[in-house]
Protein backbone atom coordinates (compact mmCIF):
# COMPACT_ATOMS: atom_id res chain seq x y z
CA UNK A 1 0.00 0.00 0.00
CA UNK A 2 1.38 3.34 -0.94
CA UNK A 3 1.27 5.96 1.83
CA UNK A 4 0.10 9.31 0.61
CA UNK A 5 -0.08 12.48 2.60
CA UNK A 6 -3.27 14.50 2.68
CA UNK A 7 -1.36 17.74 2.91
CA UNK A 8 -0.70 19.56 -0.32
CA UNK A 9 2.07 22.02 0.48
CA UNK A 10 2.48 24.78 -2.07
CA UNK A 11 3.95 28.26 -2.14
CA UNK A 12 0.50 29.61 -1.27
CA UNK A 13 0.08 27.41 1.81
CA UNK A 14 3.60 28.24 2.99
CA UNK A 15 2.95 31.96 2.69
CA UNK A 16 -0.39 31.55 4.45
CA UNK A 17 1.26 29.79 7.36
CA UNK A 18 3.88 32.54 7.52
CA UNK A 19 1.09 35.09 7.79
CA UNK A 20 -0.75 33.04 10.44
CA UNK A 21 2.39 32.76 12.59
CA UNK A 22 3.01 36.51 12.31
CA UNK A 23 -0.63 37.32 13.16
CA UNK A 24 -0.54 35.05 16.22
CA UNK A 25 2.66 36.74 17.49
CA UNK A 26 1.15 40.17 16.80
CA UNK A 27 -1.85 39.31 19.00
CA UNK A 28 0.36 37.96 21.79
CA UNK A 29 2.64 41.01 21.71
CA UNK A 30 -0.16 43.57 22.07
CA UNK A 31 -1.85 41.46 24.74
CA UNK A 32 0.91 42.72 27.07
CA UNK A 33 1.24 46.43 26.20
CA UNK A 34 3.55 47.04 29.14
CA UNK A 35 6.20 45.07 27.22
CA UNK A 36 6.02 47.60 24.38
CA UNK A 37 6.52 50.45 26.86
CA UNK A 38 9.41 48.56 28.40
CA UNK A 39 10.99 47.99 24.95
CA UNK A 40 10.93 51.74 24.35
CA UNK A 41 12.31 52.86 27.70
CA UNK A 42 14.78 50.09 28.57
CA UNK A 43 17.38 51.12 25.96
CA UNK A 44 17.03 54.78 26.99
CA UNK A 45 17.62 53.83 30.62
CA UNK A 46 20.73 51.85 29.64
CA UNK A 47 22.31 54.66 27.66
CA UNK A 48 21.50 57.47 30.10
CA UNK A 49 24.57 56.72 32.29
CA UNK A 50 26.68 56.87 29.11
CA UNK A 51 25.23 60.30 28.29
CA UNK A 52 26.20 61.72 31.68
CA UNK A 53 29.51 59.86 31.69
CA UNK A 54 30.26 61.45 28.31
CA UNK A 55 29.63 64.86 29.85
CA UNK A 56 32.25 64.10 32.48
CA UNK A 57 34.72 63.38 29.66
CA UNK A 58 33.85 66.50 27.64
CA UNK A 59 35.18 70.02 27.57
CA UNK A 60 32.65 72.72 26.66
CA UNK A 61 30.26 70.00 25.50
CA UNK A 62 32.81 68.53 23.06
CA UNK A 63 33.93 64.91 23.45
CA UNK A 64 37.26 65.49 21.72
CA UNK A 65 38.72 62.16 22.84
CA UNK A 66 35.83 60.27 21.24
CA UNK A 67 36.10 62.36 18.07
CA UNK A 68 39.75 61.33 17.71
CA UNK A 69 38.65 57.69 17.38
CA UNK A 70 35.40 58.03 15.44
CA UNK A 71 35.75 61.25 13.49
CA UNK A 72 32.66 62.67 15.22
CA UNK A 73 32.30 64.21 18.67
CA UNK A 74 28.56 63.52 18.62
CA UNK A 75 28.82 60.41 20.78
CA UNK A 76 25.10 60.26 21.57
CA UNK A 77 24.06 59.98 17.90
CA UNK A 78 26.71 57.27 17.58
CA UNK A 79 25.33 55.36 20.58
CA UNK A 80 21.64 55.89 19.74
CA UNK A 81 22.17 54.46 16.25
CA UNK A 82 24.11 51.55 17.76
CA UNK A 83 21.22 50.91 20.18
CA UNK A 84 18.62 50.86 17.38
CA UNK A 85 20.72 48.42 15.35
CA UNK A 86 21.24 46.28 18.46
CA UNK A 87 17.46 46.00 18.84
CA UNK A 88 17.24 44.51 15.33
CA UNK A 89 20.27 42.32 15.84
CA UNK A 90 18.76 40.88 19.02
CA UNK A 91 15.46 40.23 17.25
CA UNK A 92 17.01 38.15 14.49
CA UNK A 93 20.14 36.87 16.24
CA UNK A 94 18.45 35.38 19.29
CA UNK A 95 14.73 35.74 18.52
CA UNK A 96 14.28 32.44 16.70
CA UNK A 97 15.98 30.40 19.42
CA UNK A 98 13.92 32.14 22.10
CA UNK A 99 10.73 31.54 20.15
CA UNK A 100 11.51 27.80 19.98
CA UNK A 101 12.13 27.78 23.72
CA UNK A 102 8.75 29.47 24.30
CA UNK A 103 7.04 26.84 22.14
CA UNK A 104 8.84 24.07 24.09
CA UNK A 105 7.68 25.51 27.41
CA UNK A 106 4.13 25.98 26.13
CA UNK A 107 4.15 22.38 24.88
CA UNK A 108 3.23 23.25 21.27
CA UNK A 109 6.56 22.66 19.54
CA UNK A 110 5.95 19.00 18.74
CA UNK A 111 2.50 19.64 17.24
CA UNK A 112 3.84 22.59 15.21
CA UNK A 113 6.57 20.31 13.93
CA UNK A 114 3.97 17.88 12.57
CA UNK A 115 2.44 20.49 10.27
CA UNK A 116 3.44 20.38 6.58
CA UNK A 117 5.31 23.67 6.81
CA UNK A 118 9.02 24.19 6.23
CA UNK A 119 10.73 24.35 9.61
CA UNK A 120 12.98 27.20 8.56
CA UNK A 121 9.84 29.03 7.52
CA UNK A 122 8.38 28.53 11.00
CA UNK A 123 11.54 30.14 12.40
CA UNK A 124 11.42 33.04 9.93
CA UNK A 125 7.72 33.53 10.68
CA UNK A 126 8.52 34.01 14.35
CA UNK A 127 10.72 37.00 13.50
CA UNK A 128 8.25 38.88 11.25
CA UNK A 129 6.14 40.38 14.00
CA UNK A 130 9.26 41.01 16.11
CA UNK A 131 10.81 42.94 13.22
CA UNK A 132 7.69 45.07 12.87
CA UNK A 133 7.30 45.73 16.60
CA UNK A 134 11.04 46.39 16.90
CA UNK A 135 10.73 48.96 14.10
CA UNK A 136 7.82 50.68 15.88
CA UNK A 137 9.42 50.68 19.34
CA UNK A 138 12.84 51.67 17.95
CA UNK A 139 11.37 54.65 16.11
CA UNK A 140 9.57 55.80 19.28
CA UNK A 141 12.78 55.21 21.26
CA UNK A 142 14.80 57.18 18.71
CA UNK A 143 12.29 60.05 18.89
CA UNK A 144 12.48 60.20 22.69
CA UNK A 145 16.26 59.73 22.61
CA UNK A 146 16.60 62.54 20.07
CA UNK A 147 14.52 64.85 22.26
CA UNK A 148 16.54 64.00 25.39
CA UNK A 149 20.06 63.62 24.05
CA UNK A 150 19.98 64.84 20.45
CA UNK A 151 20.28 62.76 17.27
CA UNK A 152 21.81 64.39 14.22
CA UNK A 153 22.16 62.15 11.16
CA UNK A 154 24.05 64.02 8.48
CA UNK A 155 24.46 61.34 5.81
CA UNK A 156 22.34 59.12 3.56
CA UNK A 157 19.52 57.19 5.27
CA UNK A 158 18.83 55.12 2.13
CA UNK A 159 22.45 53.92 1.83
CA UNK A 160 22.47 53.03 5.53
CA UNK A 161 19.19 51.13 5.15
CA UNK A 162 20.44 49.16 2.13
CA UNK A 163 23.62 48.25 4.02
CA UNK A 164 21.55 46.90 6.92
CA UNK A 165 19.79 44.38 4.65
CA UNK A 166 22.71 41.95 4.00
CA UNK A 167 23.71 42.29 7.64
CA UNK A 168 20.27 41.26 8.88
CA UNK A 169 19.94 38.45 6.32
CA UNK A 170 23.30 37.08 7.40
CA UNK A 171 22.08 37.19 10.98
CA UNK A 172 19.16 34.96 9.98
CA UNK A 173 21.76 32.30 9.17
CA UNK A 174 23.25 32.64 12.62
CA UNK A 175 19.73 32.57 14.10
CA UNK A 176 19.04 29.21 12.38
CA UNK A 177 22.21 27.71 13.85
CA UNK A 178 21.38 29.11 17.28
CA UNK A 179 17.82 27.73 17.09
CA UNK A 180 19.40 24.31 16.46
CA UNK A 181 21.48 24.69 19.62
CA UNK A 182 18.32 25.55 21.60
CA UNK A 183 16.63 22.40 20.27
CA UNK A 184 19.57 20.36 21.51
CA UNK A 185 20.30 22.11 24.83
CA UNK A 186 16.68 23.05 25.62
CA UNK A 187 17.79 25.85 27.95
CA UNK A 188 19.94 28.57 26.55
CA UNK A 189 19.17 31.63 28.69
CA UNK A 190 22.69 32.01 30.07
CA UNK A 191 24.11 31.50 26.58
CA UNK A 192 21.82 34.20 25.20
CA UNK A 193 22.48 36.72 27.99
CA UNK A 194 26.24 36.33 27.97
CA UNK A 195 26.48 35.95 24.19
CA UNK A 196 24.46 39.07 23.42
CA UNK A 197 26.49 41.13 25.90
CA UNK A 198 29.77 39.98 24.37
CA UNK A 199 28.59 40.51 20.80
CA UNK A 200 27.33 44.00 21.71
CA UNK A 201 30.62 44.79 23.37
CA UNK A 202 32.97 43.53 20.69
CA UNK A 203 31.05 44.67 17.60
CA UNK A 204 31.16 48.26 18.82
CA UNK A 205 27.53 49.17 19.47
CA UNK A 206 28.54 51.83 21.99
CA UNK A 207 32.04 52.80 20.91
CA UNK A 208 34.47 52.62 17.99
CA UNK A 209 36.27 49.27 18.04
CA UNK A 210 39.55 51.10 17.41
CA UNK A 211 39.43 52.15 21.06
CA UNK A 212 39.49 48.54 22.31
CA UNK A 213 42.68 47.21 23.90
CA UNK A 214 44.92 45.91 21.08
CA UNK A 215 44.51 42.26 22.16
CA UNK A 216 40.70 42.50 21.83
CA UNK A 217 40.64 44.14 18.39
CA UNK A 218 41.16 40.79 16.48
CA UNK A 219 38.06 39.38 18.26
CA UNK A 220 36.09 42.40 17.10
CA UNK A 221 37.38 42.14 13.52
CA UNK A 222 36.27 38.51 13.34
CA UNK A 223 32.63 39.54 13.87
CA UNK A 224 30.88 40.48 10.59
CA UNK A 225 28.55 42.68 12.64
CA UNK A 226 31.46 45.01 13.33
CA UNK A 227 31.63 45.88 9.62
CA UNK A 228 27.85 46.25 9.38
CA UNK A 229 27.64 48.71 12.27
CA UNK A 230 30.71 50.54 11.03
CA UNK A 231 29.43 50.92 7.46
CA UNK A 232 25.94 52.02 8.52
CA UNK A 233 27.43 54.67 10.82
CA UNK A 234 29.78 55.70 8.06
CA UNK A 235 26.82 56.34 5.73
CA UNK A 236 24.46 57.94 8.25
CA UNK A 237 26.78 59.84 10.61
CA UNK A 238 29.80 60.20 8.32
CA UNK A 239 32.13 58.67 10.90
CA UNK A 240 35.57 57.26 10.07
CA UNK A 241 35.30 53.62 9.00
CA UNK A 242 37.69 50.74 9.68
CA UNK A 243 38.05 49.96 5.96
CA UNK A 244 36.73 51.58 2.77
CA UNK A 245 32.92 51.21 2.92
CA UNK A 246 32.79 49.25 -0.37
CA UNK A 247 35.00 46.54 1.11
CA UNK A 248 32.88 46.41 4.25
CA UNK A 249 29.76 45.91 2.11
CA UNK A 250 31.47 43.06 0.18
CA UNK A 251 32.35 41.40 3.51
CA UNK A 252 28.70 41.71 4.58
CA UNK A 253 27.39 40.16 1.35
CA UNK A 254 29.83 37.23 1.55
CA UNK A 255 28.90 36.79 5.20
CA UNK A 256 25.21 36.78 4.26
CA UNK A 257 25.55 33.85 1.81
CA UNK A 258 27.94 31.84 4.02
CA UNK A 259 25.83 32.25 7.14
CA UNK A 260 22.50 31.53 5.46
CA UNK A 261 23.85 28.31 3.95
CA UNK A 262 25.90 27.27 7.00
CA UNK A 263 23.17 28.16 9.51
CA UNK A 264 20.51 26.16 7.63
CA UNK A 265 22.86 23.14 7.41
CA UNK A 266 23.55 23.22 11.14
CA UNK A 267 19.87 23.59 11.97
CA UNK A 268 18.80 20.65 9.76
CA UNK A 269 21.52 18.37 11.15
CA UNK A 270 20.68 19.15 14.76
CA UNK A 271 16.94 18.89 14.09
CA UNK A 272 17.40 15.44 12.52
CA UNK A 273 19.40 14.34 15.55
CA UNK A 274 16.78 15.65 17.98
CA UNK A 275 14.03 13.80 16.07
CA UNK A 276 16.08 10.58 16.28
CA UNK A 277 16.60 11.08 20.00
CA UNK A 278 12.88 11.79 20.43
CA UNK A 279 13.55 14.78 22.67
CA UNK A 280 11.70 17.37 20.62
CA UNK A 281 8.80 17.64 23.03
CA UNK A 282 10.96 17.71 26.17
CA UNK A 283 12.03 20.85 27.96
Amino acid at each position, binding site marked *: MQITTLSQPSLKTQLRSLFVIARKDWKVFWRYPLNAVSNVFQPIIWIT*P*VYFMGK*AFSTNGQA*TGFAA*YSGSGDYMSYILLGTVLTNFILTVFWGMGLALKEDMDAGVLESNWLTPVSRLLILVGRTLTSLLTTTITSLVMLGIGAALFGFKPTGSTLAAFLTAIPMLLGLYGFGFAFAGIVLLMRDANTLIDVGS*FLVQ*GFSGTNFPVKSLPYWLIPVSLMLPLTYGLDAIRGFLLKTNTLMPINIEIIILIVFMFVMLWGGAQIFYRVERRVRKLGTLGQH
Partner: protein
Amino acid sequence: METSLTPQSLGQRGLLSDIRAFLAIIRREWTIFIRYPSWIIAMLIWPLIFPMLYILTARALSGPDGSGLAVFMKTTGATDYIGYIIIGTTVWMWQNIVLWDVGFALRQEQMRGTLESNWLSPTWRFSYLLGHTGPQIVSMAIFVLITAIEFGLIFGVRLNGSGWMLALVMLAAIPAIYGLGFAFASLVITVKEANAFVFLIRGLVMIFCGITFPIAILPEWMQAVAKWMPQSYLIHAMRTAAFSNAGVNELLPDLIPLLSFGTFWLVVGYLAFIWMERRARQTGAIGQY
Protein backbone atom coordinates in the same frame (compact mmCIF):
# COMPACT_ATOMS: atom_id res chain seq x y z
CA MET B 1 -25.85 16.51 77.96
CA GLU B 2 -24.13 19.14 75.84
CA THR B 3 -20.46 18.97 74.97
CA SER B 4 -18.45 21.77 73.52
CA LEU B 5 -15.13 21.56 71.65
CA THR B 6 -12.65 24.38 71.61
CA PRO B 7 -10.42 24.04 68.54
CA GLN B 8 -6.78 23.95 69.58
CA SER B 9 -3.80 24.15 67.34
CA LEU B 10 -1.25 21.36 67.64
CA GLY B 11 1.47 23.79 66.69
CA GLN B 12 3.26 25.19 69.73
CA ARG B 13 4.87 28.36 68.49
CA GLY B 14 7.77 29.75 70.42
CA LEU B 15 11.04 31.55 69.89
CA LEU B 16 12.92 28.26 69.51
CA SER B 17 10.53 26.87 66.91
CA ASP B 18 10.71 30.15 64.98
CA ILE B 19 14.50 30.03 64.96
CA ARG B 20 14.38 26.39 63.85
CA ALA B 21 12.02 27.28 60.99
CA PHE B 22 14.25 30.19 60.00
CA LEU B 23 17.32 27.93 59.90
CA ALA B 24 15.39 25.29 57.93
CA ILE B 25 14.50 27.90 55.31
CA ILE B 26 18.11 29.03 55.08
CA ARG B 27 19.23 25.40 54.64
CA ARG B 28 16.60 24.78 51.96
CA GLU B 29 17.61 27.89 50.03
CA TRP B 30 21.28 26.96 50.27
CA THR B 31 20.53 23.43 49.01
CA ILE B 32 18.62 24.85 46.02
CA PHE B 33 21.40 27.36 45.37
CA ILE B 34 24.15 24.77 45.14
CA ARG B 35 21.93 22.26 43.31
CA TYR B 36 22.15 24.27 40.05
CA PRO B 37 25.84 24.93 39.48
CA SER B 38 25.25 27.18 36.45
CA TRP B 39 25.41 30.08 38.96
CA ILE B 40 29.18 29.52 39.08
CA ILE B 41 29.47 30.56 35.42
CA ALA B 42 27.14 33.51 35.93
CA MET B 43 29.07 34.59 39.01
CA LEU B 44 32.38 34.48 37.17
CA ILE B 45 31.20 36.18 33.99
CA TRP B 46 28.69 38.88 35.04
CA PRO B 47 31.01 40.87 37.36
CA LEU B 48 33.36 41.17 34.40
CA ILE B 49 31.14 41.79 31.38
CA PHE B 50 28.54 44.19 32.78
CA PRO B 51 31.02 46.91 33.87
CA MET B 52 33.07 46.16 30.75
CA LEU B 53 30.61 47.88 28.41
CA TYR B 54 30.85 51.11 30.41
CA ILE B 55 34.60 50.79 30.87
CA LEU B 56 35.18 50.33 27.14
CA THR B 57 32.91 53.30 26.39
CA ALA B 58 34.89 55.36 28.91
CA ARG B 59 38.06 54.25 27.14
CA ALA B 60 36.67 55.48 23.82
CA LEU B 61 35.63 58.79 25.39
CA SER B 62 39.18 59.19 26.74
CA GLY B 63 40.64 59.39 23.25
CA PRO B 64 43.93 57.91 22.00
CA ASP B 65 45.94 60.57 23.87
CA GLY B 66 43.91 60.26 27.09
CA SER B 67 42.79 63.90 26.93
CA GLY B 68 39.18 63.02 27.80
CA LEU B 69 40.36 60.95 30.75
CA ALA B 70 42.18 63.94 32.24
CA VAL B 71 38.89 65.89 32.13
CA PHE B 72 37.04 62.98 33.77
CA MET B 73 39.63 62.71 36.57
CA LYS B 74 39.36 66.43 37.20
CA THR B 75 35.54 66.38 37.22
CA THR B 76 35.15 63.30 39.42
CA GLY B 77 38.24 63.55 41.61
CA ALA B 78 38.81 59.86 40.85
CA THR B 79 42.28 58.42 40.54
CA ASP B 80 41.21 55.23 38.78
CA TYR B 81 38.32 55.42 36.30
CA ILE B 82 37.93 51.64 36.07
CA GLY B 83 37.59 51.32 39.85
CA TYR B 84 35.21 54.29 39.83
CA ILE B 85 32.90 52.58 37.32
CA ILE B 86 33.17 49.11 38.90
CA ILE B 87 31.88 50.37 42.24
CA GLY B 88 28.86 52.01 40.63
CA THR B 89 27.99 49.01 38.48
CA THR B 90 28.51 46.57 41.39
CA VAL B 91 26.00 48.48 43.54
CA TRP B 92 23.55 48.45 40.62
CA MET B 93 24.00 44.69 40.20
CA TRP B 94 23.56 44.14 43.94
CA GLN B 95 20.22 45.96 43.98
CA ASN B 96 19.16 44.27 40.74
CA ILE B 97 19.93 40.75 42.02
CA VAL B 98 18.18 41.42 45.35
CA LEU B 99 15.04 42.59 43.52
CA TRP B 100 14.97 39.41 41.43
CA ASP B 101 16.00 36.99 44.23
CA VAL B 102 14.38 38.33 47.40
CA GLY B 103 11.67 40.26 45.56
CA PHE B 104 10.47 37.17 43.72
CA ALA B 105 11.11 34.68 46.57
CA LEU B 106 7.47 34.38 47.64
CA ARG B 107 6.30 34.50 44.03
CA GLN B 108 8.46 31.47 43.23
CA GLU B 109 6.85 29.59 46.13
CA GLN B 110 3.47 30.63 44.75
CA MET B 111 4.38 29.33 41.29
CA ARG B 112 5.64 26.04 42.72
CA GLY B 113 2.40 25.69 44.64
CA THR B 114 4.10 25.48 48.06
CA LEU B 115 3.29 28.96 49.41
CA GLU B 116 -0.19 28.13 50.70
CA SER B 117 0.91 24.98 52.53
CA ASN B 118 3.90 26.79 54.06
CA TRP B 119 1.55 29.58 55.14
CA LEU B 120 -0.45 27.03 57.18
CA SER B 121 2.55 25.94 59.24
CA PRO B 122 2.77 27.46 62.75
CA THR B 123 5.82 29.62 62.05
CA TRP B 124 6.63 33.29 61.91
CA ARG B 125 5.78 34.02 58.26
CA PHE B 126 8.27 36.82 57.85
CA SER B 127 10.98 34.20 58.30
CA TYR B 128 10.18 32.97 54.76
CA LEU B 129 11.61 36.23 53.46
CA LEU B 130 14.40 36.48 56.04
CA GLY B 131 15.46 32.92 55.24
CA HIS B 132 15.92 33.87 51.59
CA THR B 133 18.08 36.79 52.60
CA GLY B 134 20.82 34.83 54.43
CA PRO B 135 22.13 32.76 51.47
CA GLN B 136 21.59 35.79 49.22
CA ILE B 137 23.94 37.92 51.34
CA VAL B 138 26.55 35.15 51.29
CA SER B 139 26.31 34.79 47.50
CA MET B 140 26.53 38.59 47.07
CA ALA B 141 29.65 38.69 49.26
CA ILE B 142 31.21 36.05 46.98
CA PHE B 143 30.09 38.09 43.95
CA VAL B 144 31.80 41.25 45.25
CA LEU B 145 34.94 39.28 46.10
CA ILE B 146 35.08 37.78 42.60
CA THR B 147 34.60 41.27 41.10
CA ALA B 148 37.54 42.59 43.15
CA ILE B 149 39.78 39.64 42.21
CA GLU B 150 38.92 39.72 38.49
CA PHE B 151 39.45 43.45 38.08
CA GLY B 152 42.54 43.34 40.27
CA LEU B 153 44.10 40.62 38.14
CA ILE B 154 42.95 41.72 34.67
CA PHE B 155 42.90 45.52 34.93
CA GLY B 156 45.22 46.06 37.88
CA VAL B 157 42.59 47.88 39.96
CA ARG B 158 43.94 48.38 43.49
CA LEU B 159 42.20 49.60 46.63
CA ASN B 160 43.99 52.63 48.06
CA GLY B 161 41.65 52.77 51.01
CA SER B 162 40.67 50.38 53.75
CA GLY B 163 38.95 47.08 53.05
CA TRP B 164 37.43 47.29 56.54
CA MET B 165 35.83 50.64 55.80
CA LEU B 166 34.49 49.24 52.55
CA ALA B 167 33.01 46.28 54.42
CA LEU B 168 31.49 48.66 56.99
CA VAL B 169 29.78 50.70 54.26
CA MET B 170 28.37 47.59 52.63
CA LEU B 171 27.16 46.30 55.99
CA ALA B 172 25.41 49.62 56.61
CA ALA B 173 23.70 49.33 53.22
CA ILE B 174 22.19 45.89 53.89
CA PRO B 175 19.01 47.18 55.64
CA ALA B 176 18.24 49.64 52.82
CA ILE B 177 18.93 47.23 49.95
CA TYR B 178 17.10 44.28 51.49
CA GLY B 179 14.31 46.38 53.08
CA LEU B 180 13.44 47.52 49.56
CA GLY B 181 13.53 43.86 48.50
CA PHE B 182 11.06 42.91 51.29
CA ALA B 183 8.64 45.67 50.31
CA PHE B 184 8.98 44.60 46.71
CA ALA B 185 8.29 40.93 47.55
CA SER B 186 4.93 41.90 49.06
CA LEU B 187 4.08 43.96 45.99
CA VAL B 188 4.97 41.07 43.68
CA ILE B 189 2.76 38.61 45.54
CA THR B 190 -0.12 41.07 45.19
CA VAL B 191 0.23 42.11 41.54
CA LYS B 192 1.82 38.79 40.34
CA GLU B 193 3.69 39.76 37.18
CA ALA B 194 5.95 42.56 38.33
CA ASN B 195 8.93 42.45 35.96
CA ALA B 196 8.15 46.00 34.82
CA PHE B 197 8.57 47.22 38.42
CA VAL B 198 12.05 45.69 38.60
CA PHE B 199 12.93 47.47 35.36
CA LEU B 200 11.58 50.71 36.84
CA ILE B 201 13.48 50.54 40.13
CA ARG B 202 16.77 49.40 38.65
CA GLY B 203 16.31 52.03 35.92
CA LEU B 204 15.97 54.74 38.56
CA VAL B 205 19.18 53.55 40.22
CA MET B 206 20.92 53.55 36.85
CA ILE B 207 19.82 57.07 35.93
CA PHE B 208 19.94 58.97 39.22
CA CYS B 209 22.55 57.33 41.45
CA GLY B 210 25.69 58.05 39.43
CA ILE B 211 26.86 54.55 38.64
CA THR B 212 29.32 55.85 36.03
CA PHE B 213 29.46 59.58 36.73
CA PRO B 214 29.42 62.03 39.66
CA ILE B 215 25.92 63.13 40.76
CA ALA B 216 27.11 66.75 40.67
CA ILE B 217 27.01 66.55 36.87
CA LEU B 218 23.23 65.96 36.87
CA PRO B 219 20.71 68.81 36.48
CA GLU B 220 19.53 70.18 39.83
CA TRP B 221 16.14 68.46 39.80
CA MET B 222 17.84 65.12 39.17
CA GLN B 223 20.28 65.75 42.02
CA ALA B 224 17.28 66.39 44.29
CA VAL B 225 15.81 63.00 43.29
CA ALA B 226 19.20 61.29 43.83
CA LYS B 227 19.25 62.54 47.44
CA TRP B 228 16.18 60.40 48.15
CA MET B 229 17.84 57.21 46.97
CA PRO B 230 20.06 55.24 49.39
CA GLN B 231 22.10 53.80 46.51
CA SER B 232 23.50 57.30 45.82
CA TYR B 233 25.01 57.44 49.32
CA LEU B 234 26.19 53.84 49.06
CA ILE B 235 28.06 54.43 45.79
CA HIS B 236 29.63 57.65 47.09
CA ALA B 237 30.66 56.06 50.39
CA MET B 238 32.12 52.98 48.70
CA ARG B 239 34.19 55.11 46.33
CA THR B 240 35.43 57.20 49.26
CA ALA B 241 36.27 54.11 51.33
CA ALA B 242 37.92 52.26 48.45
CA PHE B 243 40.07 55.01 46.99
CA SER B 244 41.00 57.27 49.91
CA ASN B 245 42.16 56.90 53.48
CA ALA B 246 38.80 58.01 54.84
CA GLY B 247 37.86 56.81 58.31
CA VAL B 248 34.46 56.46 59.96
CA ASN B 249 34.21 60.22 60.58
CA GLU B 250 34.68 61.05 56.91
CA LEU B 251 32.14 58.39 55.94
CA LEU B 252 29.49 59.53 58.43
CA PRO B 253 27.78 61.98 56.01
CA ASP B 254 26.96 58.96 53.86
CA LEU B 255 26.54 56.35 56.60
CA ILE B 256 23.89 58.32 58.54
CA PRO B 257 21.46 58.72 55.61
CA LEU B 258 22.21 55.14 54.54
CA LEU B 259 21.21 53.78 57.95
CA SER B 260 18.19 56.10 58.11
CA PHE B 261 16.99 54.85 54.73
CA GLY B 262 17.72 51.32 55.95
CA THR B 263 15.46 51.77 58.98
CA PHE B 264 12.76 53.33 56.79
CA TRP B 265 12.81 50.55 54.20
CA LEU B 266 12.93 47.76 56.79
CA VAL B 267 9.82 49.22 58.49
CA VAL B 268 8.09 49.73 55.13
CA GLY B 269 9.09 46.20 54.08
CA TYR B 270 7.73 44.65 57.29
CA LEU B 271 4.49 46.67 57.20
CA ALA B 272 3.97 45.83 53.53
CA PHE B 273 4.41 42.15 54.39
CA ILE B 274 1.84 42.34 57.23
CA TRP B 275 -0.59 44.16 54.92
CA MET B 276 -0.08 41.64 52.13
CA GLU B 277 -0.50 38.70 54.53
CA ARG B 278 -3.81 40.05 55.87
CA ARG B 279 -5.06 40.92 52.38
CA ALA B 280 -4.09 37.51 51.05
CA ARG B 281 -6.01 35.76 53.83
CA GLN B 282 -9.08 37.94 53.29
CA THR B 283 -9.16 37.50 49.52
CA GLY B 284 -7.91 33.90 49.54
CA ALA B 285 -5.49 34.83 46.79
CA ILE B 286 -2.35 33.39 48.36
CA GLY B 287 -2.41 30.20 46.30
CA GLN B 288 -3.48 31.80 43.03
CA TYR B 289 -1.02 32.61 40.30
